[in-house]
């Protein structure tokens, strides 16, 4: 039992660090650090850099272009990408739909979809939730009716993150109502967003930005070969996907980076004032979050170590989701506390590419702290709300 990295792992860490230092495009870095939302093109340009390096799909099997990295290497990579404050791969293609395709898809589907995902040629989005189906996802009503060599899709998907950027959407749809369990009537299908009858409408979220959408399907014809796996097995596939999603959304390395930034920030004097870190209450709150975060980092490492000896990420990944999002949100609130009055100005036009950072009201990204806090209340709601996660743990881990 030991915490040390091997010489090879240290060398790997240096390699990854150098890559982010040298290959992460300076203009995207500057924008991202300044809290300016990235464009579709920014994301794609950056993801193509990762692809060129061979690091676009680190968790994929090697035969499809994955890295074959050990858990420790993946941990190092997560830390380095967070410390560079570089964006992760947008998850919907590479982390969400691709594992379903390479696990349950046909050879044709693998050849057709996987290369465009790993090369960021095609942008994917997720069609799970519906206006009437949130936590109770199995109640979903979007229908796929078989008509010859295609399905006809009718219904509405919602909370579709970056759906306005997307070329394709993967959906859970109802292919049958005539089943013993409603889960058995659900199928997993891939839909080209350019198909007639697909429309995307924005949802403006609490902080005032467009991140999510509603996607409507009106008599959308989708070829049967776009069904993944067996008809009626979509729920099973989707559950597996959600477990992948849960391990991804703990965001420990990102939270560590943010914690360090916050500590730096509150250690500085503002206009000659006393640094906030000298406030005993704040210092104790910060220390408390740091301890929980360190513990979660080791919980994640233990999960990775278990995966390394062949155990799949199981329901215990729900623990990472719950604790990870709780800590993200605790950090959000500490950033708002640290901003004080500067949490209040609502000036979104300060966060566009050509607005000089030192012309902003507030220091750096301070006035963005409240917007991030507002927006990130989603973290304990998406991917199966934290209450749903507790139901899952209760049933599958505790056996209650």
């Amino acid at each position, binding site marked *: 039992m*030991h915490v*040390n990295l091997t010489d090879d792992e240290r060398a790997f860490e240096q390699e990854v660090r150098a890559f982010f230092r040298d290959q992460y495009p300076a203009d995207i870095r500057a924008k991202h650090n300044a809290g300016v939302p990235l464009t579709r093109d920014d994301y794609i340009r950056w993801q193509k850099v990762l692809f060129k390096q061979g690091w676009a799909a680190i968790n994929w099997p090697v035969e499809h272009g994955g890295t074959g990295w050990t858990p420790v290497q993946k941990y190092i990579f997560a830390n380095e990408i967070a410390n560079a404050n570089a964006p992760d791969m947008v998850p919907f293609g590479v982390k969400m739909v691709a594992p379903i395709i390479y696990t349950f898809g046909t050879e044709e589907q693998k050849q057709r979809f996987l290369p465009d995902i790993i090369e960021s040629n095609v942008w994917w989005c997720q069609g799970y939730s519906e206006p009437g189906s949130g936590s109770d996802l199995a109640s979903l009503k979007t229908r796929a009716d078989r008509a010859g060599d295609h399905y006809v899709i009718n219904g509405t998907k919602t909370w579709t993150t970056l759906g306005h950027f997307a070329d394709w959407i993967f959906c859970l749809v109802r292919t049958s109502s005539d089943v013993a369990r409603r889960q058995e009537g659900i199928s997993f299908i891939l839909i080209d967003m350019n198909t007639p009858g697909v429309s995307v409408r924005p949802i403006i979220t609490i902080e005032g930005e467009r991140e999510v959408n509603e996607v409507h399907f009106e008599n959308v014809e989708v070829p049967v070969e776009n069904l993944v796996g067996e008809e009626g097995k979509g729920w099973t596939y989707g559950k597996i996907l959600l477990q992948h999603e849960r391990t991804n959304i703990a965001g420990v390395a990102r939270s560590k980076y943010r914690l360090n930034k916050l500590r730096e920030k509150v250690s500085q004097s503002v206009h000659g004032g006393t640094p906030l870190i000298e406030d005993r209450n704040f210092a104790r709150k910060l220390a408390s979050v740091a301890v*929980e975060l*360190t513990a979660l980092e080791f919980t994640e*490492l233990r999960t990775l170590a278990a995966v390394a000896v062949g155990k799949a990420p199981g329901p*215990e990944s729900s623990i990472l989701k719950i604790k990870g999002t709780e800590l993200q949100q605790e950090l959000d609130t500490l950033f708002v506390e640290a901003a004080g009055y500067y949490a209040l100005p609502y000036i979104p036009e300060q966060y566009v590419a050509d607005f000089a950072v030192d012309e902003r009201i507030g220091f750096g990204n301070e006035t963005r702290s409240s917007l991030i806090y507002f927006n990130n209340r989603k973290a304990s709601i998406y991917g199966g709300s934290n209450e749903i996660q507790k139901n899952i743990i209760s049933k599958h881990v505790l056996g209650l």
Partner: protein
Amino acid sequence: MDFSITEEQSMLADSIARFIDNDYSFDKRMQTAESENAFSAEVWKNCAELGWTAMLFEDADGGFDGGAVEMMLMMEQFGRGLVVEPFLANIVLAGGVLKRAASAEQKARWLSGIVEGSRHAALAFAEPQARYNFANIATTARREGDNWVLDGHKTLVLNGGEADLLVVPARTAGDTTSTDGISLFAIDAATSGVERKAFKTVDAHGAAEISLRNVSVSNDALLGDEGAGYSVLAETIADATLAVCAEAVGIMRTMHDKTVEYAKQRVQFGVPIGSFQALQHRMVDSLMACEQARSMLLRAVMLRDADSADAATAISELKFLIGTSGRKVAQESVQIHGGMGVTWELDIAHYFKRMTAIDILFGDSDFQLDRVAGLN
């Protein structure tokens, strides 16, 4: 990065687990707890015969070279079994000071008996005015001819009633809270001027309040260099803190498991109470607390074994987490057991009391958080 343990370590954990399961029933534990004895001499003899009292000492001192991992594995099992025998007081605390500070001659005289399990010792690390700051020492030692004369008051001396040997930190220079000027003395408990009031703690461990009045000991009672005892004390208390945290992780998991089991058995309103979501989510919270605590324990153990400069802070971080989340797990376990949870009859109540004691020992969660935040 490696979370696996060796085969020898695994065998050690298994052998203690077997002992707990086969020879240390809750009833047997309670017989000792409710008797006049602070521990069972028979059980202690057994611990010695199985090599457990020697485990954490160096080969040269007659031990088995066990480190933080071995200590963790043992304490976790002792926690699970709610063991009252004074492993912490004898081996980790008193033995911890002696193995670090004693000369070869002093080790032969005092430490070998501890390693063999034949001698009982105690470390008087706490004083009434100090709360959790173990550098706060008002007890004095002054030279008188070739002897040292000690005066002062020590509180909550674990195993203090049964100990033949008292390891006593006393001030030979400096202000009451100075880390310089602390000297360590090994004193026969029968020495004139040593007055002991033995008692049991709420969690059934033996302890004593000890006053020292003109206690005169010869110069060879001094352990290590005069005035340089702080670092030895700090290292020993760090080990002891880690030890009770490992014990706490064993207790938390046991309380959690027993609670989940109870919730499946206990029927109210015609259904097991475990079917109620209000209780399910709280048991999930407890599970998460157990896992987080275990993660932090493994980290602290690994840093300690690596002699990392971060180990001391890691142990404070761990103790803070144990103090807060351990209390939560313990309170929820009692709550979900309902009225039975507050009866003397049920083991849950006694685990609860041990968790309460562990939060206090070596500094509670507030104290530790201040240390982590650099506030004390």
